[in-house]
């Protein structure tokens, strides 16, 4: 029996040692990648994520904005015949427009959801406030391109995410701005003068005073957008913004500009100078030249075409272009002194706020002040912003927008679009006043084609050239012009149920460029 005792002991020891070595306490350590950041390191360098977030607002700028909104706003036009049928003659290119959808989810909302997952809301509400403001700024561009989008349910499923109506999206925006404002005010009260984001913040260098102004201004911009669709909310939110503590962006020093960093180049410079794919739009050219606007040489570079050198002749949207060389020499954007390789890119200006207040005053909203004062201040702030103060400009009642002449193809010619002058006319009708405000706003907020296209759709101003060729197969009216972009095909393949449901129940029309968005109501401005 001696052997058996010994044997049992040995077996038992075997198992004991085996199991001891089998302790799995190290598993989490083993399964943690030492070449990646730990959670605490992530928190420690959280602020460094903000620069890339801000830069992502203009991700894939050429396809996401330049080859659509910038042209639809009358600002710019490409001399490059990319395809016979493409966005610029109203045949929507899925591969381009998709970037204006997916990038904001992938590069802005997704990282911000990780910022939330890191517990930032509780640990650093001030950082969370800035993240929310960046998200609203970025996602507003998406909903204003497409209409209903997945927003409140984003991040809840890998395989199907429901869309929200555009009204719900805007309401969510307002409520997120509420959160941001409250968090910022609380932080600023508790930590006066502190700027934890520092230089990681490429817009305001971490200044929460400016971010608070930005939050109020963003609220005002969004409020005015929905004035036709939901006037009650619009007025309430606008008044809240105009009467808010912290105020609005009011001087050029408040302008929200994304500084270039990390090897990123100014997008206008890239598409215009580096790619040679962007030139001055005919509409902007005719207004600026017609008005003898001091911003003309600031925004634009004259033609280099040997047939008409030095002239500010833009390209009309939707024309026939046989070869890039035909229109490459037309007037361009000023990439030598303003839209340079390293120039910052604006997302919102003080001038825009003055014009929004002017419109609010026109509508009789409280806190808006006087329409004429707002209007004139807006113009002067814009001129100051570009370093060309011209005190007499606001008093110019004679200059009118010019007609368009295409020296290479007379079929593109057009008479002047508008007879609106610069000087404020208190006796004018509300409609004329609005055209004046929006036309000057349009000249002031250049080159943000996204915002300008939204104003055009909402108000019908400024008056813009129609496309010469319309390849939309009847889905988009040449006269009323394009109202939105179509959802990317990738949504139909990956998120099919949700997007089909959105088109049927939320969009209010077919999924094409002719369908009006929720805030784009087909009725008069007043």
């Amino acid at each position, binding site marked *: *029996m001696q*052997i*058996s005792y*010994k*044997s*049992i002991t040995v*077996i038992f020891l*075997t*198992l004991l*040692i*085996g*199991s*001891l*070595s*089998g*302790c*799995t*306490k190290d*598993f*989490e350590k*083993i*399964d*943690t*990648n*030492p*070449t*990646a*950041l*730990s959670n605490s390191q*992530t928190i420690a*360098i959280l602020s*460094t*994520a903000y620069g*890339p977030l801000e830069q992502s607002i203009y991700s894939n700028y050429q396809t996401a904005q330049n080859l659509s909104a910038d042209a639809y706003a009358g600002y710019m036009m490409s001399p490059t015949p990319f395809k016979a049928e493409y966005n610029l003659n109203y045949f929507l290119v899925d591969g381009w427009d998709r970037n204006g*959808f997916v990038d904001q*989810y*992938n590069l802005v*909302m*997704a*990282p911000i*959801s*990780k*910022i939330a997952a890191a517990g930032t809301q509780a640990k650093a509400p001030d950082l969370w406030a800035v993240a929310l403001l960046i998200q609203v700024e970025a996602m507003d561009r998406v909903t204003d391109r497409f209409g209903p989008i*997945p927003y409140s*349910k*984003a*991040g809840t*499923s*890998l*395989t*199907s*995410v429901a869309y929200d109506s555009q009204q719900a999206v805007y309401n969510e925006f307002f409520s997120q701005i509420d959160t941001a404002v409250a968090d910022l005010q609380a932080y600023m009260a508790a930590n006066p003068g502190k700027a934890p984001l520092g230089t*990681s913040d490429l817009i305001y260098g971490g200044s929460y005073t400016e971010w608070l102004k930005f939050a109020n201004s963003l609220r005002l911009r969004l409020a005015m957008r929905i004035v036709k669709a939901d006037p009650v909310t619009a007025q309430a939110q606008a008044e809240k913004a105009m009467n808010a503590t912290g105020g609005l962006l009011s001087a050029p020093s408040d302008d929200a500009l994304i500084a270039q960093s*990390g*090897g990123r180049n100014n997008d206008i410079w890239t598409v215009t100078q580096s790619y040679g794919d962007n030139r001055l739009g005919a509409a902007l050219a005719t207004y600026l030249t017609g008005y003898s606007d001091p911003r003309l040489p600031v925004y634009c570079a004259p033609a280099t075409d040997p047939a008409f050198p030095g002239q500010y002749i833009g390209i009309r949207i939707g024309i026939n272009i046989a070869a890039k060389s035909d229109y490459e020499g037309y007037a361009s954007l000023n990439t030598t002194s303003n839209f340079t390789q390293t120039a910052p890119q604006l997302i919102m200006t003080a001038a825009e706020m003055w014009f929004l207040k002017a419109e609010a005053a026109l509508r009789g909203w409280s806190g808006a002040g006087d329409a004429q004062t707002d209007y004139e201040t807006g113009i002067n702030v814009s001129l100051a912003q570009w370093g060309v103060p011209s005190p007499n400009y606001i008093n110019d009642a004679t200059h009118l927008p010019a007609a368009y002449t295409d020296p290479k193809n007379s079929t593109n010619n057009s008479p002047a679009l508008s007879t609106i002058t610069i000087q404020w006319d208190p006796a004018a009708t509300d409609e004329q006043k609005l055209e004046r405000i929006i036309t000057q706003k349009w000249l002031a907020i250049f080159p943000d084609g996204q915002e300008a296209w939204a104003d055009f759709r909402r108000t019908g101003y400024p008056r813009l050239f129609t496309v010469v060729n319309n390849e939309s197969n009847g889905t988009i009216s040449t006269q009323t012009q394009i109202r939105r972009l179509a959802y990317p095909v*990738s*949504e139909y393949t*990956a*998120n099919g149920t*949700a997007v089909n449901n959105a088109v049927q129940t939320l969009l209010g029309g077919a999924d094409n460029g002719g369908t009006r968005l929720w805030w784009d109501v087909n009725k008069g401005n007043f």
Partner: protein
Amino acid sequence: MELFTYCKNRQRRGFLQKMALSMKLTTAFLLLAVMQISARGLSQKISLSGKKLSLEEVFSVIEQQTPFSFVYKYNDIQRSQPVNLRLRNVSVQQALDACLKGQHLSYTIEKDIIAIKKEVGEDKEDSSSLSLLEAVSGVVTNEAGEPLAGVTVHVQGSTRSVATDGKGAFSIQADEKEILEFSIVGYESKRMPVGADKKIVVTLAVSQKSINEIVVTALGIRRSEKSLTYATQQVSGDELNRVKTDNLMNSLNGKVAGLTISPSASGVGGSAKVILRGSRSANGNNQPLYVIDGVPITNSANANGQPTSTYGGSPDGGDGISNLNPEDIASISVLEGASAAALYGSQAQNGVILITTKKGRAGQAQINFSSSFTADNIAYKPSLQSSYGQTKSGATDSWGPSISGGNHDNLKDFFQTGTNWTNAINLSTGSTNAQTYFSYANTSAKGVEPGNKLERNNFTVRETAHFLNDKLTVDANINYVAQTINNSPALGIYNNPLTGLYLFPRGLDITPYKNQYLFADSTGFARQNWPFNDALYQQNPWWIVHMEPNTATRNRILFNGSVRYDVASWLNIQVRGNVDRTADNYESDEYAGTNALYNTNGHGHLMLSNQTTEQKYGDLIANFHIPIHSDFKIDGLIGSSITDNTTQGLTLQGDLSTPDFFTPGNIIASLAGLTSITTSNTTAIVPNHSQLQAVFGNANVSYKDWAYLTLTGRNDWSSNLAFTPNFSYFYPSAGLSLILNQMLKLPKFIDYAKIRGTYAQVGNTVPPYLTFIQNTQNAAGQLVFNTANAFRTLKPERTNSTELGTDLRFLDNKLKVSFTYYKTNTKNQYFPIQPVTASLYSTGYVNAGNIQNSGIEFTLGYDLIHRGAFTWTTSVNGAVNRNKVLDVDSKDSINSFVLTSNYNNAYESHLTKGGSYGDIYGYTIQRDAQGRIVLNGSGTAADPYKPQQSSAFNYIGNPNPKFQLGWSNEFTYKKVSFSFLVDGKFGGQVLSLTQAILDQYGVSKVTGDARNQGGVKINGVDNTGKAITTVNPQVWYEAIGGRTGISGEYIYSATVVRLREAALGYTLPVPNGGFFKSVKLSLIGRNLIYFYKKAPFDPELTMSTGNGLSGVDVFNQPATRNIGLNLNVTF
């Protein structure tokens, strides 16, 4: 209880679970053990009485009452007389003496084995003559160097005969001119002259004919073949070394049913893709686990890895298994099914290749030397046209006017005769207490592409020692491998000399470019003497081989140790461990002058990496057999193991500052033109640290030598599942085999009939770092969020496998047939999926999929002729495998998983529901309902008829062979032996993008033929329905050819039948007692003849040994044909 304090909170739960499980396993086995814990070995008393008992009955009773097992040849006891016995409490010896009395049978007892042998006839020789003879002594071992006890040593033509003792030693009186015969059940008999020195070392090979064949199974356990419930196949070291190659796995090709080997087309030292019973894992590893002497090793590739796209670019740096010295291998067992492998757990889902290495032998020192030389030449060339020249001066294609004298063979100017020298020596010596084995091998090979070289040195020392009355056995083994591979040929479009070589305009003279590939007086890109820079980025072939050198060096140490202690005759405990550490260095230099694609600033480009991969393994196993007194016998094991894998290293690469100065400090660290960013060019290799712990058990129950039941259970704990609710998973297997010939009365011509069946589950874990998602930072120090979705509910992959089979032997064991049917379903596969945009995740992971492999395997061996000095044995192995993708992830509406993306080339490989693994997708030609090609165009010169390409990718083929067959033959006549192996892989399709590109450039023979006959003859129609029969060749081939063309037109049958290897050997007569004991010289050849091959390349060659890129040729180096000599000398 202190023990628990180590394992905190939730970890403690894992520990407790494990404890509970191991306790469960233990209790089961211990209970059985305790019940019968009265073993007393030889002092065991038995009682036995009965009348007219057959010897088999007697043996069976003894087996029931004692721990002993009997081995005997059935023929030997067939004619024995029934016995009448009345025994009570007698010893085993007494019982045996009683029943064997007068039966002309004798017995030997070694440990728990009783061997019954035929007694040699009565001694009729004059005993006085014997006294004149001296005693000859020696040792008998098996191929693994283990001593063989109970071997009958008989002097030929005499009646003198002895048996070896427990250490394999014997001593017998014999004259030096006499011949000794060695025989034992289970091994091939051997004859050997005594010789002058009277010290003899004999190795007996495992018999292919024997019933009680011993097979090495999982964890290195030796078991009798008849008790196995699954199929295994063994290949001996001799067979493996007959015709050597630079990667030993290639020597297995065609020899094992169900084993598919696809060598990489990457020159000497290249990897091999080894697949057992079909690919099954979409995103995981599909290659088997390699195990040496029971302990797993790694098969790690060079840090450079494998190409992942048709562009190729990064050369293959060889795999782990190719590092071994094949001369050290005693035998290889292939455990194909999950059942066989279940004890190895997750790592063995794809089967196991078990390698048993040689050991030192007790007895006289022996030295073996072998030397092998082969000369390698390319086995085929692309067919090129010779009658049409360059399109116009400066053009890279050959759609120009007809020329004469375009026959010059540019390929001959480039390819060289490769050589492979392998010299190996091994020495073994030892006493009965300690044995030593030492070996050294040097492989020195040169590829067919200039500059491609392999230099490998292997050192092995192994020591085996016995202590404490042989109760303690210690075995330690150190292998060191130093290997350098130079200039592995790049496969694919990038950096490949073959693009420039094959596409060189016909009729132009390439020799100036060979003689002067660089302009020494120029700088930057202008240095390379090459007139073309086209969309394929082709370069001067000689520039690439001289001015873009790459070197992969590897230093590998493999240390194995094991200690076994025999606690009792029924129990031993074994501890084993190994450390397998591989350090790889890789350097790739691109000199200034290299195409701008690879060398942005024109100053040259450097890539360096160093990587150390380490696997540590340890196990603790108790082997037991229960000394139970009944018809039932139980043995088994319980154990636990731990495996820890990790990788460390750095990579750096970038353009150079000072031209052609290849040192890390010369890499430009900041991006040109930017001021604010500094990028680091150094990256740490992700360590992929993972640990697997296991507790396992196995029980084998046999009944009366004809029914065998095997049960296994294993529980794994995988660190890769940390952060999930459960990182533990269990899987069982059960198998049964029945020996029909011992159960039932079978017709006489059936010597042996076994049926077997098993069911097994094997789990496979997921890659590390998927369950805890971590963020990273970019070169500018900014936080970069990882937006992959952490997989918190990840389940381990699981393969369910069923196997049924039979093993039969007929005609005096001369004909041996084995047949197996299997079906495996691999589920819960881990797939990365592309979630919807608004999910806010860039990647998601799901557990899904059901990939089924089912098939049959058979082997058939026939000892055809055994007449005098002439023998002929033949064997056939065959396998059919059907792979079906039953599901990808239908619950998430995902029905396709891309194995290889197209990256804008016309090849993609998929895993698509309803298809099979590795389906090839490409563009197809547009046809009408009648199958006629629909052409665009109006037939004018400005608007010629042109075939149309499908807008999307369509299924065009699958590369997996449907059926494989290997036929090997061995002839011997006196001192001459001849063997050959023919194998065929039938079915499947492969794609040649090489041919497509050659056609597009107008250099291929078909394009010349088409021009000669005035156009490409087709059955087509134009848009109006008008029949078109001829199309302009240039228009046609530029449309269908090229890397983005209509790849569906470049699909070929993958069927290939070849003379895989042949060896003609001659054993030289050596004088007895001379310096040499034996000398054998062989003429060897490999890949000698393609009996059938339709593809323009060897369809077996693969561009990558990973899961993708199968069945496509993109300027892969051609297969080679090898002829040489082999010399084996024993001192």
